[in-house]
């Protein structure tokens, strides 16, 4: 009886142990781009690795390459549906009139600003001066200059990292689950983990107008929620990350007033 109780508890805990979390922030005045806009997607920063039995991450070049291509294809498909013109950089030197070094500088700047956004919006170090002000960060003049030189309206920065549980890791979880039968219940050794974030920068003002983080992880190895190395998983990620852009607070309030 006790064994069945444990098995039941385990079965119940399974759906809870693989979770996908999303949280987006937007500038109060932000309206998601629609119709005739030009979007520049900077080189997606993608890493896919394998989670070893012992819990280390082994980077995998082939999976990373597959994932990068699948993600690029998924962004193209998604943005075409919105009506925008999209350019996705695969390399830093692909932008006419802008040197690879300038592109790198903007990427690094976004990386630093993005870290600050994550720290102060997601990790709990909230800033009292930025309360109720939506997303209040900017890349400044560098981004505006990039917009002037290239004629793009927006720049999108995307980071995705995915760790796929190796066979050994899954076996470790199975062993832990088997232990439940003898009273040493430890199936949740930690499995696949994915962290994706993206930021949209308005190249007319230089401001970061929208930011989204998707975090997905399964406590039990073997449970999946969309692997980036598969086209389906990549499309799912792009949809989770970029598919549901919400307008900023001021815009939403205005829309609500109009409805009334």
């Amino acid at each position: 009886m006790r064994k069945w109780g444990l098995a039941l508890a385990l079965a119940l805990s399974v759906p809870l142990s693989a979770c996908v979390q999303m949280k987006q922030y937007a500038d109060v005045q932000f309206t998601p781009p629609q119709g005739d806009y030009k979007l520049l997607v900077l080189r997606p920063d993608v890493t896919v690795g394998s989670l070893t039995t012992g819990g280390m991450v082994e980077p995998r070049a082939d999976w990373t390459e597959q994932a990068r291509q699948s993600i690029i294809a998924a962004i193209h498909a998604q943005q075409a549906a919105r009506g925008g013109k999209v350019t996705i950089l695969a390399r830093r030197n692909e932008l006419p009139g802008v040197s690879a070094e300038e592109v790198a500088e903007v990427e690094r700047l976004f990386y630093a600003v993005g870290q600050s956004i994550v720290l102060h919006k997601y990790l709990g170090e909230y800033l009292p001066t930025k309360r109720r002000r939506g997303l209040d960060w900017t890349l400044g003049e560098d981004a505006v200059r990039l917009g002037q030189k290239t004629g793009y309206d927006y720049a999108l920065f995307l980071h995705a990292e995915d760790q796929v549980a190796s066979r050994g890791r899954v076996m470790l979880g199975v062993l832990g689950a088997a232990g439940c039968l003898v009273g040493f219940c430890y199936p949740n050794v930690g499995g696949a983990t994915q962290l994706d974030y993206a930021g949209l920068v308005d190249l007319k003002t230089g401001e970061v107008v929208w930011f989204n983080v998707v975090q997905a992880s399964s406590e039990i190895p073997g449970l999946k929620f969309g692997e980036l190395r598969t086209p389906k998983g990549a499309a799912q990620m792009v949809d989770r990350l970029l598919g549901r852009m919400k307008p900023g607070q001021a815009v939403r309030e205005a829309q609500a007033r109009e409805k009334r």
Partner: protein
Amino acid sequence: MCIRCLELSRRSLLVGGGAAAAALGTGVAEARVRPNDMVPLVGPGYKPVDKDEVGIWQLMERAEEEIAGSNLLINDPELTGYLRNLIGAVGGPAARDFRIYLAHIPDFNAMMFPTGFGVIFTGLLLRMRNEAQLASVIAHEAGHFLRRHQIRSWRDMRRKSDVLAIGSMLAGVGGAAGGVYLGDYVQLAQLGTILSLFQYSRAMEAEADAMGIKLIAENGYPPMEMPTVWQQLIGEERLSARYRNKRRRRGSLFDSHPSPDSRLADLRLSASEVTVPGRGYDSRRARYLSAIGKIRPMMLDDQVKLNDPGASTYLIQTLAQDGWNGLLRFYEGEVWRLRNRPGDEARAAQSYAAAVVYPDAPADAFRWHGIQLLKNGRSAEARAAFSRYLTMKPNAPDAAWVRQMVG
């Protein structure tokens, strides 16, 4: 419950933990690695084949792209060319595949990445007294690549963490099934794993030292210069600690590198082993000094501003073993002036006065010499020093003020 049980379990715990650590160990004792046993494991144009190594290389190529574009790099073509030629000489079979970057960071450090690119800190260039010393550090770093250390230690870590994860899980499940608690064994095995990882890392460093000393000897650098680098580091650490009323830290089980003391001892033995009697060795000091000459003032300036008077004094005195000059005397004065304890001002004044005698004294030596003279009421001499300062540096930020002082 029973006294005997306790005793038994204690002993078995120790035995079990020791066995676990031994099982995880790679059989590498902390003995000196003989230079003659070190053969390069990669040839020219090495490219990885195994999928774990291919993955790491891809990641490292991205890292190199970022490092190569960093604004901390010194991109002076003469200097970077000099470093490239140096690794091209002592890099063994992979000599032509290495890339080397010079970062403006005032620390004693150099590193090699798994794909064959290295980063050297300016703090290292400041500390080296001749080309042989720099070559020995570069050859050590090249040794890491030639002996495939990064992938080997990565695999070692993966294997040990796998064994530990499975072992802990089996201990838990098996223990629960058999009704015994094995948690203490698991913890001991964990400690054993961690210790063996550090030990493996130290063994790799010892290999790189042995490989490096062989490479520099083959290139005609005096092998004894390699232990001298460590002797200098030990001296610097000791004096730095003494000035701060601290004791120099000794090695521990948790070190990733062998302690400088054991390195020094091992390297001295290795150096005598690889020295061929009758062969001529050259430390190529003049060539080194002319290569780094233009950034030496900057590097000394960085060093004295680290607020580590013990290390700075040691360093300057070590460099001065090859002869004092105006630059070294000036920065000797700066160390005292910036420390600013009772008596330091007089020491600084002496150094500035000594500095201005040398033909290579920097303009700032005359400025500070002038200020010290002025404080001591020797205004006529001070004026002469200030005039000299203005002639050397007419556009100095404080030129207007100094001009007014000269009157």
